[in-house]
C-alpha cells in the first residue's frame, strides 16, 4: 500500500463534560474507528448528528474542537504519526498538506478582507508560492469551480458574492496550497437545493482535476454518493459499515444503513379535493413594514379539510411569510383569507378564541418553540386550560392521552424541554398543537432541523394523526422528498409568487415550467451518476434554448 495518504487506526476521542451540578465526567465521542484513504480518493463520512463524523474529519488535522482530546489510536499522514505531534509540526501541516472547508462559508470568511487575500493566505504563509503564482493558481481554481468572471472574482468582498459562490471560494482556498487532503465538512448543507447542485458539481470537478484526496462529511447519503469513491457510515461514534459507494447504495449490509437509504419512502395515498375547502387564500399580497416590495404578491391557494397542502420553495420565496399572514401575525396588504366558510379577520387581535384555537402552528426549531422553564405537562396542559378550561385531574389525564398519541408514553410529563431529544421536542410541539383540537396545523419546516430517520418518524406520526383526527396541514418545506411523502396538493413558490399549484400528481408530472424543473431536478437522488445525468440534462435544455 504505497499509495496510502491517511491512515487512522483505532482512533479514540474523548471529551470532558461539565454538567452543571454534577462532577465532570469523561465521555467517549469516537471509539475504535479505523480508516485508510489512498491518494486521490474521496471518502464520504456519513451519519446523523452526534455520530462523530466532523470530529473524525478534524482529527485528520490532528485538531479537536473545544476540549476534545484525541486520546488513543494512531493518525498517520503520509506515513507520519500526527496524533500527538507538537504545535510546530502541526502548524507546518495544517493549511499545507491538509486543508478544511467548513459548513458555513459566510461565517468562515473575514468580511473585512477581499476574497483573493483570504484564498491565497495559507499558501503565502507557508511560502509555497510567490504572490503572483498563488494568485494565478487561485484564478485557475475560480475557473475550474465555474465562478463568474474568474479574473476579477478575487477582488470582491465576501458580502458581494452569493452563498453558493462563497462556498466555492472556500473550496478554492482549500485547494490553493496544493494540499494532499481536503476535508469537506457539510459544504452544501446550508445551501438551497438549486444552489447545492452547482456547488456539488464544482467540487466534484475540482477534486477530479487537482487529483486531491478528500474526506467528505455529510448527513445526506444521496449527496455523498455523487462525489465519493468509498463511504463510511458512522453512528454514536462507532463505525457501522464501510464499503464502496456502489456496495453501500445497492447492497447495504447493516440494518441502519438500509434505514438511511430507504428514508422518505413513506407510502401516502393522495386524497381528492372536497367540495368545500377549509382554508381559502385569495389573491393575498403582503409586505413587511415600510418595504417597497411585496414579499407575497397575489397568492391564491386552497386547502381541503383533512388534507395536506405543501408550500415548496427555496429560502426567500415567501413561504414562511405565508404562515405569518395566515396566523394573523402579519396582516395582508390585499386579499382575503376564508377559514371554514367564514372570512378570517386579518390581524391576530381581531380573532376570536375559537378562531385561534382552530388554527395551530408547529415551528422549525422545537428548542426555542417551548419555554425552557416549563415542564412538558405545563406546555401541553396550557392550551387545554386556556381553550377548554380543563384543570387538575382532568387536565393531567388529557395530557397523558396526548403524550400517548405522540408515542411518548409515561414519565415525560415532568420533564423540561432540555431533557428531551430533538425528535421528542418536536413531538411535544405537535402535542401542544393537537391539544387545541385544531382544524388546521401550519407546519413550518418541522423536519428540516432533524436527522433523516427522526424526521421520518415525525412525518409518519403527522400522517397518522391526520388519519385519526382529520386535521389539515399546511406544510412549509424546501425538501421535495418530504413533499412527495405527505402532500395532497402542492404550491411551488418562487419570489413571492405561486409558480405552480395543483394536486400532487399534476404538479409533479411534466411538462414543468423552468423553475419547477430546476427545483425538482436539483433534489439529490440516491443513485450513482445522478449528478452527471442532471448536468447533462441541463446542458441539453440550455443548448435547446
Amino acid at each position, binding site marked *: 500500500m504505497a499509495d496510502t495518504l491517511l491512515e487512522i487506526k483505532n482512533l479514540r476521542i474523548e471529551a470532558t463534560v461539565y454538567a452543571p451540578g454534577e462532577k465532570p465526567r469523561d465521555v467517549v465521542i469516537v471509539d475504535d474507528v479505523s480508516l485508510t484513504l489512498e491518494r486521490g480518493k474521496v471518502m464520504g463520512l456519513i451519519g446523523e448528528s452526534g455520530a462523530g463524523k466532523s470530529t473524525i474529519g478534524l482529527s485528520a488535522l490532528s485538531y479537536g474542537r473545544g476540549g476534545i482530546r484525541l486520546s488513543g489510536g494512531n493518525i498517520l499522514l503520509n506515513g507520519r504519526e500526527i496524533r500527538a505531534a507538537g504545535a510546530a509540526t502541526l502548524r507546518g501541516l495544517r493549511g499545507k498538506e491538509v486543508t478544511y472547508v467548513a459548513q458555513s462559508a459566510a461565517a468562515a470568511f473575514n468580511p473585512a478582507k477581499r476574497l483573493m487575500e483570504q484564498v491565497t493566505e495559507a499558501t503565502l504563509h507557508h511560502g509555497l508560492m510567490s504572490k503572483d503564482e498563488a494568485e494565478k493558481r487561485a484564478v485557475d481554481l475560480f475557473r475550474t469551480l465555474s465562478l463568474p468572471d474568474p479574473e476579477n472574482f478575487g477582488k470582491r468582498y465576501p458580502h458581494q458574492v452569493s452563498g453558493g459562490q462563497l462556498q466555492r471560494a472556500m473550496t478554492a482556498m482549500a485547494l490553493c496550497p496544493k494540499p494532499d487532503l481536503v476535508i469537506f465538512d457539510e459544504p452544501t448543507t446550508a445551501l438551497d437545493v438549486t444552489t447545492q447542485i452547482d456547488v456539488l458539481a464544482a467540487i466534484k470537478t475540482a477534486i477530479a482535476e487537482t487529483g486531491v484526496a478528500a474526506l467528505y462529511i455529510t448527513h445526506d447519503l444521496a449527496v455523498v454518493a455523487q462525489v465519493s469513491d468509498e463511504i463510511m457510515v458512522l453512528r454514536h461514534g462507532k463505525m457501522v459499515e464501510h464499503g464502496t459507494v456502489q456496495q453501500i447504495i445497492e447492497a447495504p449490509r447493516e440494518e441502519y444503513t438500509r434505514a438511511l437509504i430507504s428514508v422518505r419512502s413513506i407510502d401516502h395515498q393522495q386524497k381528492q379535493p372536497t367540495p368545500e375547502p377549509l382554508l381559502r387564500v385569495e389573491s393575498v399580497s403582503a409586505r413587511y413594514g415600510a418595504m417597497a416590495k411585496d414579499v407575497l404578491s397575489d397568492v391564491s391557494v386552497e386547502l381541503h379539510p383533512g388534507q395536506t397542502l405543501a408550500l415548496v420553495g427555496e429560502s426567500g420565496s415567501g413561504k414562511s411569510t405565508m404562515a405569518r399572514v395566515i396566523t394573523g401575525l402579519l396582516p395582508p396588504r390585499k386579499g382575503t383569507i376564508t377559514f371554514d366558510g367564514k372570512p378570517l379577520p386579518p390581524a391576530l387581535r381581531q380573532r376570536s378564541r375559537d378562531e385561534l384555537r382552530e388554527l395551530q402552528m408547529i415551528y422549525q426549531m422545537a428548542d426555542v*418553540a*417551548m419555554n425552557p*422553564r416549563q415542564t412538558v405537562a405545563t406546555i401541553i396542559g396550557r392550551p387545554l386550560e386556556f381553550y377548554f378550561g380543563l384543570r387538575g385531574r382532568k387536565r393531567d389525564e388529557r395530557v397523558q392521552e396526548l403524550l400517548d398519541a405522540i408515542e411518548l408514553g409515561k414519565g415525560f410529563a415532568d420533564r*423540561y424541554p432540555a431533557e428531551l431529544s430533538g425528535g421528542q421536542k418536536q413531538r411535544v410541539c405537535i402535542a401542544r398543537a393537537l391539544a387545541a383540537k385544531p382544524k388546521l396545523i401550519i407546519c413550518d419546516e418541522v423536519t428540516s432541523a432533524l436527522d433523516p430517520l427522526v424526521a421520518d418518524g415525525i412525518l409518519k406520526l403527522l400522517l397518522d394523526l391526520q388519519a385519526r383526527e382529520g386535521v389539515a396541514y399546511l406544510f412549509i418545506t424546501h425538501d421535495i422528498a418530504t413533499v412527495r411523502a405527505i402532500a395532497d396538493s402542492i404550491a411551488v413558490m418562487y419570489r413571492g409568487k405561486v409558480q405552480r399549484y395543483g394536486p400532487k400528481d399534476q404538479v409533479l408530472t411534466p411538462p414543468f415550467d423552468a423553475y419547477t424543473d430546476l427545483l425538482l431536478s436539483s433534489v439529490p437522488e440516491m443513485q450513482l451518476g445522478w449528478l452527471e445525468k442532471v448536468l447533462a440534462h441541463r446542458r441539453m435544455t440550455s443548448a435547446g434554448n
Partner: protein
Amino acid sequence: MKGIPISALLGLFITGLFFLAALLAPWIAPYGLGQIVGDIWEPSSSQFWLGTDNLGRDLLTRMIYGGQTTIFVASMATAVSFTLGSVLGFTAAVYGGVTDQVMSRVNDLVMSIPTLIFALVVLSVMPVTIPVLILVMGLLDSTRVFRLSRAVAVDINVMDFVEAARLRGEGQRWVIFREILPNALSPLVAELGLRFIFAILFISTLSFLGIGIQPPETDWGGIVKENREGIVYGIPAALIPAVAIVTLSISVNLVADWALNRTTSLKGGRGG
C-alpha cells in the same frame, strides 16, 4: 440542593448573621441606643467590644441598631426598584413601538440626572422620613433595573415560544409573568445582589451628608459622620461601619453568585 459551595455557605452565614442581628437588635444590643455609658472614644474592651463613640455611647450597640435601619431601608428600596423596574421594563419590551419609546426615553431622561444630586434636591423639599427615603431611593434605582429588564425581555420576546403563546391568544400579563419572567430571572438575580449593595452605599451616603436617617435614629452612614473627626487622632470608630458594609457586600454577592449559578443551571436552563 446538596453540595452548596463553601463560598456560598460563607456568604449565607455572614449575611444571615447581619440580618439576624438587625432583626433581634433590641434583644442582643448590650446597651440602649442613645445611652451614654462611658468616656469619649474609649478603645475596645471586654465592656465595650468595639469601644465607644464621640459621645461615649457603646459602638457595638449603635452598629447593631444602625445596621437594622440600613438593611431595612436598603432592602425595601431594592424591593421597590425591582418590582417597579422589571414590571415596567417587561411591559415596554412586550408592547414595543410607541409605548416602548416613550417609556425608555423618559427613563433615559431620569437617568441623565446624577442620582445623588436628584436625591439631594428631592429630599431637601420633602420631609425626610423612612418611607420617603425608601421611595426616593427605590424610584431612582428602578431606572437601572428598567434598562436591564427591558434589554433582557426584548431578546426573549422574539423567541418562538412567546410567539406561540401570542398565537394561542394569551394576554400580555401571561406573556410577561409566565413566559418572559422565568427566563429573565438569572440576570435579574445577579443585578439584585449588586443593587442591594448600591442601596446600602446610597443610604449611607445620604446619612453621611446629613439628609438621610435623622438623629436620634442612626445608621451606618450616620455613625461614620459622627465619628469621622476621630480618624485624625487615630481612632478607628469611623472605619467600623465601613468594614461592616464591605463584609455585607461581599457575602451578599457570594450568595447572589450561587443563586445565579442555580437558576442558570436548572434543568430548564436556556441551553447555549
